[in-house]
C-alpha cells in the first residue's frame, strides 16, 4: 500500500514537472476533455436531478411539519453545492472515466505499447498521463457546476410538486439565495478539482502498473475505481475540515 502511495505521489510530481509541455499535447487534452464531457454529461444531469429531488423529498416534509418550510431551499442548496454534487459526481466519474483510463493504459502496458513509446524516447507521463489528468481536472469541476444547478432544479421541482412540501419555485430559490453563498459553490467546485486529480493519478497509475493479460487489466480497472472512491471519501473529510469556516 505504501509503495503504491509513493508511486502515485511520484507520478503526480512527474506530471506537474511535465506541465510546461502541455501545449504540445493540447490536441490530446481536447480529445480527452470532450470524451469525458460527452460520456458523462447526460448521466451527471440525471443523477444530480434525482439527488436534488430525493434530498427535497427526505427533508421537505420533516421541515414543513415543524414550520420550517422556508429552510428547504437553503438546506437542499447547500447540501448539493458543498457535498453531494462534488462527491457523487466524482464517484460517478471514477466509475465511468477512471475505469476507462486504467483499462486503456493497462492494455497499452500489457501489449507493450508503452515499452514501444519508451524505446522511441517518448515519456508515457508526457504522452499519456499529462493529457488525461489535465482533461479530467478541467472537465470534472465543470460537470460539478452543472450538477449543482441541475440538482437545485430537481430539488425545487420536487418541493413544488410534492403535496407534503408544496413550496413555490420562487420561495425555494429565495431561501437558497439567502443561505448559499458563491463561496459555497466555489468550495464544491474546488473539491471536485481535487477529486479529479485523485481519479486521474490513481487510474493512470493503476494502468501503468498493470501486469499479466486481460485478467491483469480487469484487476487494475477494479483497483482504480475502488481506490479512487476510497481516496475521494477520505479527502472529502480532510477538505471539508480545512474549508470549514
Amino acid at each position: 500500500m505504501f509503495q503504491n502511495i509513493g508511486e502515485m505521489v511520484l507520478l503526480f510530481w512527474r506530471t506537474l514537472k511535465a506541465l510546461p509541455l502541455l501545449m504540445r499535447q493540447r490536441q490530446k487534452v481536447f480529445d480527452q476533455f470532450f470524451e469525458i464531457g460527452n460520456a458523462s454529461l447526460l448521466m451527471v444531469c440525471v443523477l444530480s436531478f434525482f439527488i436534488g429531488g430525493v434530498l427535497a423529498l427526505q427533508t421537505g416534509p420533516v421541515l414543513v411539519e415543524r414550520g420550517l418550510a422556508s429552510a428547504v431551499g437553503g438546506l437542499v442548496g447547500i447540501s448539493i453545492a458543498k457535498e453531494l454534487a462534488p462527491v457523487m459526481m466524482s464517484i460517478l466519474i471514477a466509475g465511468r472515466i477512471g475505469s476507462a483510463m486504467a483499462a486503456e493504459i493497462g492494455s497499452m502496458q500489457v501489449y507493450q505499447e508503452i515499452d514501444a513509446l519508451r524505446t522511441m524516447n517518448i515519456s508515457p507521463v508526457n504522452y499519456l498521463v499529462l493529457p488525461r489528468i489535465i482533461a479530467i481536472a478541467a472537465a470534472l469541476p465543470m460537470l460539478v457546476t452543472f450538477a449543482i444547478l441541475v440538482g437545485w432544479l430537481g430539488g425545487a421541482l420536487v418541493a413544488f410538486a410534492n403535496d407534503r412540501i408544496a413550496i413555490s419555485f420562487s420561495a425555494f430559490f429565495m431561501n437558497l439565495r439567502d443561505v448559499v453563498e458563491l463561496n459555497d459553490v466555489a468550495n464544491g467546485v474546488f473539491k471536485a478539482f481535487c477529486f479529479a486529480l485523485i481519479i486521474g493519478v490513481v487510474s493512470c497509475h493503476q494502468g501503468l502498473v498493470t501486469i499479466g493479460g486481460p485478467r491483469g487489466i480487469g484487476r487494475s480497472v477494479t483497483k482504480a475505481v475502488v481506490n479512487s472512491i476510497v481516496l475521494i471519501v477520505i479527502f472529502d473529510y480532510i477538505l471539508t475540515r480545512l474549508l470549514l469556516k
Partner: protein
Amino acid sequence: MSAPQNNQHGVTVEVRGLHKSFGRQEVLKGIEFKVNAGEIFVIMGPSGSGKSVLLKHIIGLEPPDAGEILINGESIQSPEVMNKYRLAMVFQSGALLNSLTVGENVGLYLAEHRLKPPEEIARIVAEKLEVVGLKNTKDKMPNELSGGMKKRAAIARALVIEPQLILYDEPTSELDPLSAAVIGQEILNLKNRIHVTSLVVTHDRDLAFGVADRIAVIDQGRIIAIGTPDEVKRRPEPVIRRFLQADFKTNNRTTL
C-alpha cells in the same frame, strides 16, 4: 527531452556480466558478448532461455541486477547515452499503438519530438512504408493488418528513427514462411543500406543462419557459444546439437 545527435553509422554493443532475477528465478546469469558496428548478431535459443529479457536490458527497459551494457563504450545507465544514440526495437507483437493509424504510428517519433514539419513527416512515412512493402496502408488501423504486416509496419516505425542499432524480438514468430523470408531479407537490406547494427533474438533457425554475421546461443540464462553460423553449426555441445537437429518426426508419414 533532447533530440538525438546526428550519428550516421552503426554502434558497438558490449554486454558485461549481466545478471537479472525475477523473485527467486535467476533469468540471466552473467551474460557477456560484444556486437561490432554494422554487424547482424543473432541471439538464438529455446523459449524461456532469457532472450527477450536480455533485449529489454539492452534497450534500457529493464534495469540489471548486476553488470553493465555499453553502447560505443558508454554505459546506458547514463541518461545522456540513450539520447545520444538512436536505438529502435521491433517488438514480437509489433506493439503498434492501437489508437493510432499505421501512418501515425510510423511518424510518431518525428511528430512527438517535433523533428520535422507535418508535410515532411507525411513524405517520410510514405517512403518508409513503401520500403517495407506497405504502400497504401497509412490510413489503416493496426487491427486491420495481418501479423506480418504489423511487423513490417513496426520495422517502418523503427526505420523512421534512422537507427544506429535495431533490436528485433522474435521477428518471424507467428509468420508464414514467405512473410518470414520477407522480414529476413528486410533485415539484410537494412544492414547493407544504412549500415545499422542489428541484434536479432530468435528461435527460428532458418532466420538465424540466413541473416547472421555471428550467432550467440543462449541457454538457461547463459551464453554457451558464440561464432559465425558455420562455427556454431560445428559446435559439439549437446544442447546446441539438440537445438539444431530438432525435427518433427512421425512413423506414419504419407508419401505424396
